[in-house]
């Protein structure tokens, strides 16, 4: 069984973010980490491997700093590491094409990733890749295990929990998973250090990145939050209630 896990390096959720020229200043990000939903996908991939064998390939599309995330993935047990140099690609369809080509080349027939990245929160990567590789896509799952030739995935629905059966090839996107990503142990760290990262370009993958069909027309910062209002005494209750009802629309 070939298991591919798609990972994205994002600013750590605790890192300070600074905005420069209306964009997040990437050089000022103090800490980069694996996107948290991808961590759940990675843990599920490791559990699939432990239960049924097979090799895990971790694939990311990003700048050279993302190699650190791949090495961290190797430390918890990923077998092969692929970095697709992003060459400044921002269009999500391009990213999907590159990831899909890398998945195909790896020969993996099950793909796991987070439901969305913690920075852009687009949520398009998983479904987009599954479309390009011709795999079934089961989204927002919390758990997956192999059964027969296929898989059973569990996901929460508004009315309860769904149990979805799917055959290969398939792709799962992870919501908050059943288990947190394991800690690396010392042996894993020692092994990870020796692991090679395969760095590929769009040419290597045979993907022609054309011009983007999407362009950013304008960007405006969120409106400044209006200052808080202070009310004192029981007399102000009707005013507060009116404001909560008519202005804030919360009651």
């Amino acid at each position, binding site marked *: 069984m070939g298991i591919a896990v798609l990972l994205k390096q994002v600013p750590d959720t605790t890192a300070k973010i600074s905005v420069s020229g209306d964009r997040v200043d990437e050089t000022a990000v103090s800490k980069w980490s694996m996107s948290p939903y991808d961590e759940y996908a990675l843990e599920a991939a490791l559990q699939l491997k432990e239960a049924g064998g097979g090799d895990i390939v971790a694939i990311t599309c990003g700048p050279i700093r993302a190699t*650190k995330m791949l*090495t*961290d993935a190797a*430390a918890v047990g990923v077998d092969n590491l692929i970095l697709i140099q992003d060459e400044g690609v921002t269009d999500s369809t391009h990213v999907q094409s590159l990831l899909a080509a890398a998945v195909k080349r790896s020969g993996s027939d099950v793909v796991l990733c987070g439901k969305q990245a913690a920075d852009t929160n687009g949520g398009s990567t998983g479904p987009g890749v599954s479309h390009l590789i011709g795999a079934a896509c089961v989204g927002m799952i919390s758990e997956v295990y192999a059964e027969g030739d296929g898989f059973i995935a569990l996901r929460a629905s508004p009315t309860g929990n769904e149990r979805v059966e799917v055959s290969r090839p398939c792709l799962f996107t992870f919501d908050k998973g059943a288990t947190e990503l394991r*800690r690396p*142990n*010392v042996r894993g*760290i020692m092994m990870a*250090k020796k692991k090679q990262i395969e760095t590929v370009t769009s040419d290597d993958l045979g993907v022609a990145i054309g011009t983007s069909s999407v362009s950013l027309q304008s960007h405006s910062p969120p409106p400044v939050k209006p200052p*808080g209002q202070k009310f004192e005494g029981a007399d102000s209750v009707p005013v507060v209630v009116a404001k909560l009802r008519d202005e804030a629309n919360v009651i």
Partner: protein
Amino acid sequence: MTVWEPPIREYDFLFNEVFNAIESIEGLGFEDFDADYLAMLTEGWGMHAKEVWLPINELGDKVGLKFEDGNISMPQEFKDAYRKGIDEGWLATACKPEHGGMGVPTFFSSVTWSEFGTSACMALSVLPALSIGVYEVLTSNGRQDLVDYFAPSLASGELAGTMCLTEPHAGTDLGIITTRAEPEDDGSYRISGTKIFITYGEHDMTDNIVHLVLAKAPGGPEGTRGISLFLVPKYLPAEWESGGVEGISHDLVPEHNGVTCSGSEEKMGLHASPTCVMNFDDSVGWLVGPLHGGMPLMFQMMNRERLATGIMGLGLAEIAYQNALAWSRDRRQGRDLRGIRDPNKPADNILVHPDVRRMLLEAKVNNEGCRALAVWTGILIDQMNSDDPEVAEPAEALVALFTPIIKAHFTDLGCETCSTCMQVMGGAGYCSEFGVEQFYRDVRISKIWEGTNGIQALDLAGRKITQNMGKNLRHLMWPLTEFIEKNRDIPEMGEFNKPLHQGVRGLQQITLLMIAEGMANPHFLAAGATDYCRYFGNVLLGYMWAKMAKVCLERQGEPFYDAKLASARFFFKRIYPETISLAAKIQSGPKTLMDYPAEMF
């Protein structure tokens, strides 16, 4: 609810920017070790300590160990956490690869490892720290069969080790111990005697415990020169009949080897670290190292433990600081004396108050200075193993010099910092909910362990300074003077370099005074030793801050480096000046101490 984040960025700065740690150990057998590997180990160990060790720390204090019928049972959570340490390989960092260890450099295994471990759970951290101490003495001095049999399980943590020195009547003065070792025809010995204050002397964290016991065998001279060192297991191997342990299985005899625990002390802190009275009754043991040559070996272990104890002071000071800071960020009391800062709130945040800032900065700046000195010392310990005498000799001299200073100054500061951090928090600091009062109680032992700080000061002033005709001090003065000279003409370095230069000159003068007066009157040396040790500690931290400032001047404009420069300024203006009063105290000599009539105390 206590908080703690492992100070990973601080270690990254020290390893890679201040000391070039990886380059410093080139050619010393760490060829596979690089900056990425070091970063992953630092992060990995930090994560383990935070997720596995920190959550049991308060429980250890509240629940503690249970002593019943000679047995000590540890909280199940401690056993689980210790087991995770074994399974994930974190207890074997210092050990050699041939024994299943990682063989990583000392600046990680003895510095970063110890700081994170003691911050997260000091009571647990001392168990593997002791086992590694036993491992090192055994592997460098023990018979091959003992090494083969015991070293791999000591390395992994499956087997625990202790050191048994103190007896009811013999603490600092080990020359008068009465534990006896009678030789047998098969080369083994029978050990009998009572030892007290044995940390982790008895527990149920591992299946077996090996004790390194100081005892006197027949035919030796009086005093410490007649002491030998023996390895005594709690349970003997089942297949052992006589002689050594070559090739026998690891199954154990169910009955103990005459090794019993008759009590565990009730203590101020460290409630989950057993402090045992151990009885050895005709217990089988094996000689480690030469007959009547046990003391130098015990000092080998003791020196390692002295550094580890010093770093305990740092570890507890760091977690105390982090908790006091977290509390301060939320706490609002009073108004900024120069005008209201936050008119929408009933009070300003307490960080507006100069005295709160003084306390937090004293804690932070001393911690960071100590951490730098600890990393440098870790590198020097690795360099002691160099084949090049020009590297090994100064390293050995500096480690000899720094050991008592790290032990005494770091633990003095550790206790002061925990107290200061409690003060920052006011009444909340005194309440157990916020953790700092536990750190305050736990850290207090570090001033006493492994030779009290008074003994450390005497070791520095009475031995380490004069050793080999002052060689140790010369090896410090050369790089220090060179640093000062190099930076003399750099205007931006003046605010750090000038006070450092003054402090170094003062240290030289006071050292000469101590030696000259001390030769005529040993009381002069003994009366000034503690203040001298603190003076010396301040000069070393001054050197560390000047070195760090030098790096940060190159990267001004970045918040991390600007804050470091501000910390360096604080150190030289508000901590370092205590050297002036320390010098005055030392110069006053022993008269006011010794002239006081003893009967009037």
